[in-house]
């Protein structure tokens, strides 16, 4: 059987990590959402008031609720609504970890071009995740 029929080492490594990360992420968003709905942790925005805010443009929503952008949610994890961002950020971060996992494999296999591509991709995703990039509001 041709070796190419089998997924490559880096592809399998990526898939295994993605599998674990995806399951943990989906479980996290479900559990944190149940905590949010249960009212165990008081939310920053009272749940009954949500319909007042969800039809606002994001800039107005942030201004009215006093929510800050970027990673400020980390300081608000004690609030039921912001706890959900833990699972959401986990899901959005899984791909970065998967890429970091395959970089050493690619360089060990002397696949320099793809190793560099993977490093650049990590930098792009980290830049997106950093919160440095602010969208001009409308």
């Amino acid at each position, binding site marked *: 059987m041709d070796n190419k029929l089998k997924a490559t080492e880096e592809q399998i490594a990526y898939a295994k990590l993605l599998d674990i990360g995806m399951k943990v992420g989906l479980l996290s968003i479900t559990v944190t959402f149940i905590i949010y709905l249960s009212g165990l942790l008081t939310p920053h925005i009272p749940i009954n008031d949500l319909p007042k805010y969800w039809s606002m443009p994001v800039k107005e929503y942030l201004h009215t609720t006093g*929510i800050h952008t970027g990673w400020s949610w980390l300081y608000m994890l004690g609030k039921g609504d912001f706890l959900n961002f833990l699972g959401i950020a986990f899901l959005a971060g899984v791909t970065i970890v998967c890429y970091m996992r395959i970089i050493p494999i690619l360089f060990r296999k002397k696949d320099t071009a793809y190793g560099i591509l993977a490093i650049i991709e990590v930098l792009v995703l980290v830049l997106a995740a950093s919160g440095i990039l602010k*969208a001009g509001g409308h």
Partner: protein
Amino acid sequence: MSNPSISIKFFVILALFSVLLLIPVMAFASEQAATLEPVAETVPAASSMPWWGWPLILFVVTFFLGIAAVLGGVGGGVLFVPIIGGFFPFHIDFVRGAGLLVALAGALAAGPGLLKKGMADLRLALPVALIASACAIVGAMIGLALPAKVVNIALGGTILGIVAIMLMAKKSEYPEVKQADNLSTALRISGVYHEVSTGQDINWKIHRTPQGLFLFIIIGVMAGMFGLGAGWANVPVLNLLMGAPLKVSVATSKFLLSITDTSAAWIYVNNGAVLPMMVVPSIIGIMLGSLVGVKLLTRAKPTAIRYMVIGLLLFSGLRALLKGLGIWN
């Protein structure tokens, strides 16, 4: 077999598409240049329904969207944004943020299986993903900077373009690639996959790599700007233009979304455009719907459902366009 006329048609549609997308954006830019006055937006009145009413309806609707997406062969994101944006009280900023996370969750769930089976190809995905994800950041930032009416006009135009692509673009099971191009040869993008239905091992390679990579700039921007996911564009480019077999194209496209949507999703998260009360019921609803959809797949009539999905997209695309133009609020 690869049909050049189909590729040309696809190029033409995508070009028209980009023009449709650019018209409102440019109109807005010139409007802003002409006057420094901020553009006022109408904020709809809060719904009289109890707080749990809309999230519950959202969950039920996304459940059915999940079924329709599987049976109609489209991604969840492309149905989610125009339908939820058009008929729910949520602002389009939050709808796009949720749409990206819905598409991302679906892609993350499908990714491991597709990679392990060798259907999705990492070597094909990596260069494409780099371009698409970087451009999705730009798209997300543009999308969040534009007023809702401009986004709705551009979204409506895009959805109508997707309908045209779905109606016109054919698929090619095993496109004929006589010779791999220099770039794909240098990057060693080729492979073999096992076709279970025929028991054959299919060797594949790709061509027109630079043109394909160029189109992923546009696809990335659109994915980020509208939160649509991008399977509707990924598959025709990978399959018809670059010549990857259909199954490899579909699988790689799905995996690709997990990377493209990651970068755009972070921009929405970091700019506050993510409401857990919308995101979580949507993700759970669409995933449960997809599971049911997979079970129904053997009994359903795919052509009829595909036309139903196209009809839904047409209706919601028109709705977004008319909403943006202020004709149907």
